[in-house]
């Protein structure tokens, strides 16, 4: 399992109810169910991934988070997890609102556009950065709304969303991000994981 999932799993208490939005092939759900006795549900758009989850016996609903989150009742999950897809929605603001409606808390992770390699790539080459975390070029990227850790920080402040914890991930290293170290962590983290709500 990738480091990001380990961090997310550590944020989730045992015996809770978790909705994994964009659950992929279900590897996070599988881990949470087996290791932490968490009651998991997944929402996934990709047909092959839905099939993989079903084969593993994981409950998954084929659907688009952009339009189909309304089917989950208010506060019906302890946690809702959204891993690295917020930036891919047409309306991330609306999706985040929906996540906060469904979950008592929400864990959102983003590929950090403020990461130093991305910044320098754009600065030096003058072209849209292509990295391991962001492997697509400008015309075929699903990421419509790239943002940095700092952006999401200010967004939560603006919308009065409580930030409970922010963790920066760079390869195997993780670090706690606070307002006091935001500038530096925004520079050195590849991925930002926010626990909000």
């Amino acid at each position, binding site marked *: 399992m990738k480091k990001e999932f380990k961090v997310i799993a550590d944020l989730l208490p045992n015996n809770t109810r978790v909705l994994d939005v964009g659950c992929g092939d279900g590897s996070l759900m599988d881990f949470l169910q087996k290791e932490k006795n968490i009651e998991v*549900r997944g929402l996934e758009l990709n*047909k092959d991934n*839905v*099939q993989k*989850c*079903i*084969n*593993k*016996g*994981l*409950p*998954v*609903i*084929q*659907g688009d988070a952009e339009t189909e989150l309304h*089917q*989950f*009742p208010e506060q*019906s999950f302890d946690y809702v997890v959204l891993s690295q897809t917020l930036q891919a929605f047409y309306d991330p603001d609306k999706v985040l609102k929906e996540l906060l409606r469904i979950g008592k808390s929400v864990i959102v992770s983003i590929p950090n556009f403020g990461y130093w390699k991305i910044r320098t790539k754009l600065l030096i080459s003058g072209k849209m950065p292509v990295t391991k975390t962001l492997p697509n070029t400008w015309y075929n990227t699903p990421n419509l709304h790239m943002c940095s850790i700092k952006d999401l920080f200010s967004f939560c402040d603006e919308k009065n969303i409580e930030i409970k914890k922010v963790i920066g991930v760079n390869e195997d290293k993780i670090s706690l991000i606070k307002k006091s170290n935001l500038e530096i962590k925004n520079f050195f983290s590849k991925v930002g994981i926010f626990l909000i709500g």
Partner: protein
Amino acid sequence: MPSLAGLFFWMNSKFENIKKIEVSKPLKLDCGKTINNFPLAYETYGKLNSNKDNAILVFHALTGDQFVTGTNPITKKEGWWATAVGPEKAIDTNKYFVICANVIGGCMGSLGPKNINPKTNQPYGLDFPVITIRDMIRAQASLLDYLGVSKLLCATGGSMGGMQLLQFCATFPEKTFSAIPIACSASHSAQNIALNELARQAIMADPVWDNGKYLSKNVQPKNGLAVARMVGHISYLSEKGMQEKFGRKLQEKADYEFSFNADFQVESYLRHQGYTFVDRFDANSILYITRAMDYFDLSKQFTGGLVEAFKNQKTRFLVMSFSSDWLYTTKENKDIVIALNSSGADVSYSEIITDKGHDSFLLNEPEFLKTLKGFLDSMYEKFKK
């Protein structure tokens, strides 16, 4: 002319060698009447293992029967779900024990309008009580007791089979570990009621039908029943699928005949489907079963609607729909998923993309069969003792 007794003997001789139980426990029907000591015909495939944890109950659709796979001993044709059920199929009978019962109201051995009414010594006809989907599944619960299955690994069914399944889960929340409702609905839509009414009117407009008393005269309202079947067949296909299959192709001729014979292949197809159906199905059964479907509205049985119907469900669901199905649309199937989600049930959902319409669940749709198998096998891993 054969004697009446001789006729009944002939009718029933075909059904002599099929499996049947006599349900002695009185069953109070939703209409208020009670039936008891009635026959329930069924078939099983595969073997129930010693732990009794590999049983799967299949509910059949409107014109289906208990002969899910292999050769149907009555029609001599392949079972209606042979694409999905059998050795090494998605529902593998080498591994699982598959049970299917003929619905009450049907005509393949279970109590139905063609059975003899002991009060009159004539076939029931319209004296048969109006039955509901709930009556059907309550009758089938007796079969599980008889077979010694206290908890099913899975129950599944498409179309009306799916409706029976939803009812089964709501009525007996503990009876199955998992459930796969396919291409169905929790309440019959206006369009579906309308199509059923068309089928019933076709039968009742046939003078041979004679208020349902045709069996005493050793006849069937074939024309009406065939039209009813044609209506069904149109609704099972999609517009695109039909266009691709038939287009404007002519039936074994180079040009129009300038007559009302079946010039077009699609006409020929419908006539064939219609007139082969009359050999195996009882017209009154169509009336009764379509009525049961129309009355089906699971949400109405619970004050809190569909969400309450599925409250406290421990059953794991997989709902599947087909993109081109206009009879039981993706939207209707998703409503089931939404209700299950709202009640906190464990539910998966998959929409199969296909042009083949409602019929898809009976066809060799690889994506569908793969999902069916994947879910079932994973459920077995969780359930087996």
